[in-house]
């Protein structure tokens, strides 16, 4: 009986829905942070036996990183880049909701088809895959560089939950290496956002389109 863990899973799905439709940048950052914290707490709630010190410490690191450090980095990047507050999605509200629900259905179907190891917590596999899809949605349907980083983080959350769901016991060293990578990724992307804003006066990636092989007409012979 993992009633609390299941509640957290449903909350994570609802956060996906919220992320898919929200148009405010600070709300997006908060939602991603909340999702990261929930994902970090999940191993404490889902474990069948008692919580070991290692698990607790690792969960604490995750919660600290996703709940405090990442939002801080992102808010700093947002402020320094002077991004406007709105990040209205390119697709409409109903379409976003439909996409989220559809991805959850697809993920459930996928999860039921694959012979995945049995987990004690219901919906964890579909929820994690749906979160990965939502990350994709954020990356592809928003035009601000910072929302693309948010999308990457949502994907990362999803993958983290997926890892929990499969109970793939990674050695601590590997976990830490992965975590370090994600941290550096957000850090580097934050710097890149700052440079983009300085160089282009905006962080709208829809206008990062100088390099393309599709519109090369009228140059040279």
């Amino acid at each position, binding site marked *: 009986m993992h009633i609390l863990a299941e509640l957290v899973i449903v909350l994570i799905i609802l956060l996906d829905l919220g992320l898919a439709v929200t148009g405010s940048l600070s709300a997006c950052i908060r939602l991603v942070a909340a999702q990261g914290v929930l994902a970090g707490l999940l191993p404490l709630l889902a474990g069948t036996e008692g919580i070991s010190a290692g698990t607790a410490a690792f969960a604490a690191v995750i919660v600290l990183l996703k709940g405090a450090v990442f939002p801080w980095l992102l808010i700093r990047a947002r402020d320094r880049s002077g991004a406007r507050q709105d990040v209205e999605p390119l697709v409409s509200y109903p379409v976003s909701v439909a996409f989220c629900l559809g991805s959850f259905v697809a993920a459930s179907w996928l999860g039921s*088809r*694959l*012979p*995945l*190891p049995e987990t004690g917590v219901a919906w964890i596999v579909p929820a994690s895959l749906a979160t*990965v899809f939502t990350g*994709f949605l954020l*990356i592809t349907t928003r035009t601000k*560089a910072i929302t*693309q980083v948010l999308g*990457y983080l949502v*994907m*990362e959350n999803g*993958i983290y939950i*997926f*890892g929990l769901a*499969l*109970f*793939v*016991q*990674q*050695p601590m*060293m*590997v*976990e830490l*290496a*992965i975590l*370090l*990578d994600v941290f*550096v*990724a957000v850090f*580097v*992307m934050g710097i*890149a956002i700052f*440079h*983009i804003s300085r*160089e*282009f006066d905006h962080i709208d*990636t829809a206008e*990062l*389109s*100088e*390099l393309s*092989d599709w519109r*090369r007409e009228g*140059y*040279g*012979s």
Partner: protein
Amino acid sequence: MTTAVLLLPLISGLLAFVLRDDASRRSLLLWTARAHSTLAALLVFFWLSGQPEAGGAWFAFDPLGLFFLAITSLLFLGASHYAARYLDSEKRSPGEDAEPGFFFSNAPEAVFTGSLLLFLAAMTAVTASRHMGLLWASVEATTLLSAPLIYFHRHKRSLEATWKYLLICSVGIALALVGNLFLGAAGVKAGVGLDLPSLLSGAPLLERQLLKAAFLFVFVGYGTKMGLAPFHTWLPDAHSESPAVVSALLSGALLNCALLGILRVSAVCARAGLADFTGGILLLFGVLSLLTAALFILGQRDYKRLLAYSSIEHMGMISLGAGLGGPGLFAALLGALSHSLSKAGLFFTSGVVLEAERTKQIPEVKGLLHRAPLTASIWLAGFLIITGMPPSGVFLYKFMILRQAAASGRYWLAGLFLFLLVIVFAGMARAFISMVFGERPEKPGEKPFREPRGMLAPAALFLFLAVLIGLWLPGWLDSLLKAAAANAAGTL
């Protein structure tokens, strides 16, 4: 020695960030590269003499890893010499952009050199990883550490390229992480971990469907990084906008690292009896990459992008070779080596061409032979080598793939392969010939160009080596390649 080869670039890289003096930083770069390749050569030597180093549980070199380490290290050796000379000339000349009337500044040299060395450390870690999770982390690290390199010239277009590179590769590699998790899940019931030795030995026990899913995700993930179509979109941008030395490393070393990631998982799949499945996917995306590259090479106007698409083409052919299996794997590895050598040589030369002509547009470069005869000759030789004119390693591996395709009864594939090669050749020939020959337009006030021998020497050397392996494959290289191919096939 494994530890040394891993730690050396890491420590030097961190040191480069704190060193204040340009000259000492450059000699640090050179000496690190020399020491790294010496260590790599020693590792190969010990393996050849039958007493390979055991290594640890996390990092150790098997023949496949050793082979890619050797390529990476050799390439870096050339790149470091080129870079030292390049940084010197960048320091002296103002940063005028290839587009006229547009100036930019460069990133601090400390950041560039430090990132270059850390990039080497990450690539070394990729070749040495014995654990799939660690392999993943190292590949992601290569992305993050090479991003500052692409953004060396601080202007809009390189920034756009950096952003696309960072985001597309990070997202792609995130999918590879999902693949790794599937791989882990496939072994949960059988109690197989994610470290390579137990994955290989326990491969038949793995859950087949999950293993298939794992391969798909890993393939898409590392395939993005490797530049296989349709996930290649970052590659032309990053290669064309970064400094020549970085393009050479990206194309020659980084793509190979991603290839290694795919080969590791496909070896496990082959052991589990899924060779047909993985082979099919490799063939499909190989053909797709060839097709895409051929299409975009035909009308290409930017010679660095042309080289980038040629990299996609070669990655497609290597993927084809890997998909065909058997001798095809040997051909693929030979292809990785010869492509790295010849493409690095070409990219090095492209940097000199850019310096001479100050444009990347093919139609604006004419009669290079008159302005920079040595550069033009190397440029032309590189073109002949990369398109597979005999005798060269490139020709050899293309021929082997063709033969393997025919031998396995896939005549349609062989036909398509030949057809696309002809298109690529035509497209590249048009570009290179119009650049090298032709009447040079009068440009008033143009100063004569002094060809930088120090930058051309590594290019010429690499191209020479690429020809050499086509003429004569030394016995030790042959045995290393065979062992590596056996590794990749999962039979060793």
